[in-house]
């Protein structure tokens, strides 16, 4: 800004001057306190007696550099599994939520099925589902390639995650006020149409931030498929760990995951903030 502009501009009020000074002051304090904490961490941790060994075991540059490309390659397996599981989970989750919301007496069995699905798959540890479906169903005698652990492992993930996702969808559906259904019906919309054109668009929009959290969780749980064979990033890191007796490959894997999850989490925060603004 030129000196001329500053002269020509309005003279700041005493209040503005005071607030600017307060703002500068809190900025300086925040910077100083952050710097002090960072300096303390950087100076104190390396002074711990075991730091050399911890550093050699977890933060070894040579190990990191030699294993990172292999980890990135294995991460593509995670991405692929995620890419076909996520849409399947969304569809199945929505179907289960709709089944649990079925109001016609004839569809009561659907409600039972939906409730059983969410109860069972939310209650059973994911890893048991992965083992049971990944080894169990192919063990019934399916021929190759239909016994692939990729297929059945993905199904296990889909079943588990759709149970959570269905509950989130259901909470979204129930959060739409009953009067909306009544209004839709009074306009002559059928049950199905009022669900499709009135309830669901609002319900889905409301639960998107919550569903983003499920996506982030799924992204990490894809690694559970490694228990039944597929060599994804955690298995690959485990192989490197065993061969080199060093944990650094896990740090490499964590960095790759963070590169995905941190932007995804920030985006979720952003969506939530926008939703809160819209509501208020």
């Amino acid at each position, binding site marked *: 800004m030129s000196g001329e502009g500053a002269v020509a501009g309005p003279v700041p009020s005493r209040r503005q001057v005071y607030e600017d000074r307060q703002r500068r002051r809190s900025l300086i304090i925040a910077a100083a306190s952050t710097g002090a904490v960072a300096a303390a961490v950087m100076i104190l941790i390396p002074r711990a007696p075991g730091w050399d060994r911890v550093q*050699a075991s977890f933060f070894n540059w040579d190990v990191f550099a030699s294993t990172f490309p292999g980890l990135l390659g294995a991460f593509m397996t995670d991405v692929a599994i995620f890419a076909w599981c996520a849409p399947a989970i969304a569809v199945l989750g929505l179907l289960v939520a709709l089944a649990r919301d079925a109001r016609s007496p004839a569809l009561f069995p659907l409600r039972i099925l939906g409730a059983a699905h969410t109860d069972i798959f939310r209650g059973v540890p994911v890893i048991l589902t992965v083992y049971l479906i990944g080894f169990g169903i192919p063990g019934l005698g399916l021929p190759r390639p239909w016994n692939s652990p990729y297929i059945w492992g993905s199904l296990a993930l889909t079943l588990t995650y759709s149970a959570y996702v269905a509950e989130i969808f259901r909470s979204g559906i129930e959060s739409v006020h009953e009067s909306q259904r009544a209004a839709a019906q009074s306009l002559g919309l059928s049950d199905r149409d009022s669900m499709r054109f009135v309830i669901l668009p609002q319900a889905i929009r409301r639960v998107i931030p919550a569903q983003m959290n499920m996506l982030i969780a799924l992204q990490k749980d894809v690694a559970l498929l490694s228990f039944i064979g597929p060599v994804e990033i955690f298995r690959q890191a485990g192989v490197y760990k065993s061969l080199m007796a060093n944990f650094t490959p896990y740090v490499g894997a964590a960095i790759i995951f963070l590169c995905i999850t941190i932007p995804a989490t920030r985006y979720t925060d952003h969506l939530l903030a926008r939703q809160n603004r819209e509501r208020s």
Partner: protein
Amino acid sequence: MLKLLLCSGLTIAVTAASALAEDRCAAGKTLTEGKLTIATGNPAYYPWVLNDAPESGEGFEAAVAYAVAGEMGFSADNVVWVRTSFDEAIQPGAKNFDFNMQQYSITSERDKFVDFSAPYYAAPMAVLTAPGVTADPTLEALRGLKWGAVGSTTAVPKLSGVIKPDSDPLLYGDNSDINAAMSAGQIDAALFDLPTALFLSAVMIEGSAVIGQFPADREDNPDLFGMLMEEGNPLKQCVDAALEALKSSGELAAIEAEWLQQTTGVPLIR
């Protein structure tokens, strides 16, 4: 007079004890003075340890452990067993064992971060095929199979380096998962050290067969098993000396013959 006798008796006892301690290489180097703490897997597998009970001294590694302990001057009563996973064994910081025996292959990469004793067993790699799978013991025939292995073993680099299968191998956490994958028809064959392969085919996986072992002249084969120790553990020289003594006296070979004798007679892979 009695006092004098007592006094001299005490002196003799003290000198004897200190002489024994001086004689002992391990004095002051073990976790607990006077005790030797040995770690094994959880569970420990046959034929390395029988019935998951290393205290019995039955099974190859359990027997070697007691022989080494005896050579180092520890009676069987002074051997303490603990269990660790692979990861616990390589974590930085103080260990809860003096040495760890669970078929650790000695490799130069691992040696940078932990110490190994001299090898106590040379294990050739062997091929275990699933029920109903037949293949000739040639690299050519093996390449076309669908492979599996335990992800934490040296079988993995062996697969990618020597067999070079046509499709990517599937990797598992332990032997029982390999068993499940074979029952599910997801893999045709898996790579193990020979004694483990023989045990799995005989006891665990019905209908499976050990169709071949890799000849000893290949690079990195056989795998040499060593006892894992914390990097820079001063006990290493005592353990090595004990193993050396067991080797030259023929006792190690006798233990091997007693617990792992059936390992011959498996065809070589060409």
